């Protein structure tokens, strides 16, 4: 006992050791590694779950946005010819022979539609050229150039060959270019998309603008409510909290539909305004099927995401802070601005970030109540996922959106600090 005390007390130059002489660090590491292994095993299921359901799909999505082998995989010989020749090379007999062989092969393998679809993304109106020529490809005989051109003279179009050269590589930036209203011309130069097809940049701007507006509205509406909830006795505030959470328990469609009932031209709000004589029957206010509808409905739907983090930050702030400020000579406004508000910042940050990110991604609500002017970028992502089935473009648009949100997150971290975020 006495010896041990002396050992510990003595200043040991170099490393500390345990009683049996092993280095203390190694012994500690060994003692802790078992605990660490067990902890890791406990979180392993969640880790796997996240990797399988979240990281892998997002990775696939991102990959799809730059990778589309619809042409290169199904037209191997022609793709090889493009790889072997310089851009701008006139298609020769070898090229046409490769084309004829590939068309024949793709038609037999029933993949000609995939090829046509891929080329059609870049050059509209060419899909049927592939499918119809594919059906005739079985009968092609040399010289192939004549045979193909005879089947359809459109094959002689140099733009078509320029486009095929572009899509002959599985990896292509074209979908990302398209997602910001750019395109590549036959020479491969990046140019702006034709005026009447530019839509995405404008929609990205509108999406961020509307999401920002909704965030501000949610904050203005949610802050007093959260404050009320946080200061009322727990029993009353729990009851009111149920009212706040009620929208969570009704389906999104029910909520959206009820907004339609309320806001439409013949809806409750307009009818009341007409009945009270505030507006004439002929001048009913258009509050739905436009941006106003999107903003109103989304503010309602996202409000709980603002209130909850605010509430959870406000609840533990004792009233004595504001009282202290008042006793120190601050008016109620000064006490709010300098003492209360700064302490709710983590909640404001969390709520605003949540509402904004969710707002940027919403598409059902804008689709139902947004009309034409209330459509957001997510509606077009959904359109390309579900209707046009151009998943690569949908992935590129989603990737741009993801990047924008990540940048925002990074900015928030730089400006406010992410550790200053309290989600509840």
């Amino acid at each position, binding site marked *: 006992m006495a010896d041990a005390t002396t050992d510990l007390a003595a200043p040991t130059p170099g490393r500390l050791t345990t009683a049996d002489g092993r280095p203390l660090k190694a012994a500690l590491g060994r003692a802790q590694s078992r605990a660490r292994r067990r902890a890791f095993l406990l979180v392993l299921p969640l880790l796997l779950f996240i990797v399988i359901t979240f990281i892998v799909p997002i990775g696939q999505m991102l990959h799809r946005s730059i990778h589309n082998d619809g042409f290169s995989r199904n037209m191997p010989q022609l793709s090889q010819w493009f790889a072997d020749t310089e851009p701008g090379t006139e298609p020769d007999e070898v090229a046409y022979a490769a084309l004829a062989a590939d068309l024949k092969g793709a038609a037999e393998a029933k993949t000609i539609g995939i090829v046509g679809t891929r080329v059609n993304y870049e050059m509209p109106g060419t899909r049927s050229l592939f499918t119809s020529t594919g059906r005739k490809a079985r009968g092609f005989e040399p010289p192939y150039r004549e045979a193909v051109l005879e089947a359809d003279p459109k094959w002689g179009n140099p733009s078509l060959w320029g486009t095929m050269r572009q899509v002959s590589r599985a990896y292509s930036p074209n979908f990302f270019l398209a997602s910001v209203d750019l395109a590549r011309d036959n020479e491969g130069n990046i140019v702006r998309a034709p005026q009447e097809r530019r839509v995405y940049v404008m929609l990205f701007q509108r999406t961020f603008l509307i999401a920002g507006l909704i965030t501000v509205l949610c904050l203005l509406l949610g802050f007093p409510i959260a404050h009320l909830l946080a200061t009322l006795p727990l029993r009353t505030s729990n009851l009111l909290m149920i009212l706040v959470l009620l929208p969570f328990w009704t389906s999104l469609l029910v909520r959206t539909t009820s907004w339609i009932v309320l806001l439409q031209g013949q809806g409750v709000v307009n009818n009341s305004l007409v009945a009270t004589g505030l507006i004439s029957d002929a001048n009913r206010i258009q509050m739905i099927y436009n941006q106003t509808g999107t903003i109103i409905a989304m503010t309602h739907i996202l409000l709980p995401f603002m209130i909850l983090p605010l509430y959870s930050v406000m609840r533990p702030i*004792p009233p004595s802070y504001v*009282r202290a400020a*008042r006793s*120190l000579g601050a*008016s109620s406004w000064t006490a709010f601005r*300098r003492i209360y508000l700064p*302490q709710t910042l983590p909640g404001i940050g969390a709520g605003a970030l949540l509402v904004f990110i969710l707002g940027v991604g919403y598409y059902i609500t804008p689709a139902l109540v947004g009309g034409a002017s209330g459509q957001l970028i997510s509606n077009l992502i959904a359109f390309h996922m579900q209707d046009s089935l151009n998943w690569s473009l949908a992935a590129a648009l989603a990737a741009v959106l993801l990047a924008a949100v990540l940048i925002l997150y990074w900015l928030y971290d730089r400006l406010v600090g992410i550790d200053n975020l309290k989600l509840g």
Partner: protein
Amino acid sequence: MVASTQDDGFVVFEHVQKSYDGETLVVKDLNLTIGQGEFLTMLGPSGSGKTTCLMMLAGFETATHGDIRLDGRPINTVPPHKRGIGMVFQNYALFPHMTVGENLSFPLEVRGMSRSDRERKIKRALDMVQMGAFANRRPAQLSGGQQQRIALARALVFDPQLVLMDEPLGALDKQLREHMQFEIKHLHESLGITVVYVTHDQGEALTMSDRIAVFNDGRIQQLAPPDELYERPRNSFVASFIGENNRLPGVIEEIAEGRALVRLDTGELIDATPVNVSHKGQKTLVSIRPERVEYKPEMLPPNAHLIEAEVMEFIYMGDIFRTRLRVAGSEEFVIKSRNTLGQRMLQPGERIRIGWAPQDARALDPL
């Protein structure tokens, strides 16, 4: 610095009533005058109305009825930030997002004070509580005692005439608490400010106050300096709330000239001073402090009544001995004797006779 100025009425409560729900009164007809420079403590169990009184004075609660005046000016309608009252809160209420310096700067900023004036005053206030080196710390980096000092400095930095303290030492451990009691008392004396102090700790109240207002059930039960409160409690509540005390129930047998003879429920007769009893046959509760009970006959007045007691337990506490006795059927009768040279240690089972000077036993209202 004893409350010689209490009559000038620096703070006056006049027939103040307070109800939260419109059905019951939390404060029932409060009348209280506090003098300039006085240290007044509001003492009482929780729910007795003392904190409500403090909050009404600070302006966070409004009186349902009655007037509160500060320095001659009615303040019922004055908002809290215009009252110029410093306040120390139970959990200090230091603003967590500000440094110590910023916390102290806040009351000066809202008063529009110039930067140099602010810095001077902050330094002076911090030095006053020996925290001069901590201006750039955040409250969360300070210990409880340090936070307490900062809260004190913040309440004093803008030179208020009146400082309210709402159980300011409640969160500290015993040793630190006692130390801080002296520091607060010292600051009060050196600055000459008026302090209204709320606590439920009678030791704290006795140590610090010029006068103590004992609250119970929405009323002031007794308002007196500490010695008077201890020596001469006016009713059973005060007697039992302040200090340790033995209680013997009985009936007045004789009463005359400031002396009474009480027949205990078990038949013995004892001496007492009548306080709020007046006639023969009245029920009473006789209260005797443990240190005033004597068992050595030579120490008692010659005509004192003595009663039988049996020693149940003897506890050696160093400076004093504490002995539990069975007296008049109760086993909770305690006596304390100083550990003086030759003092005898009583043995459990020993039978003795005890007595007291009549002025030390007070015949009070039965609880």
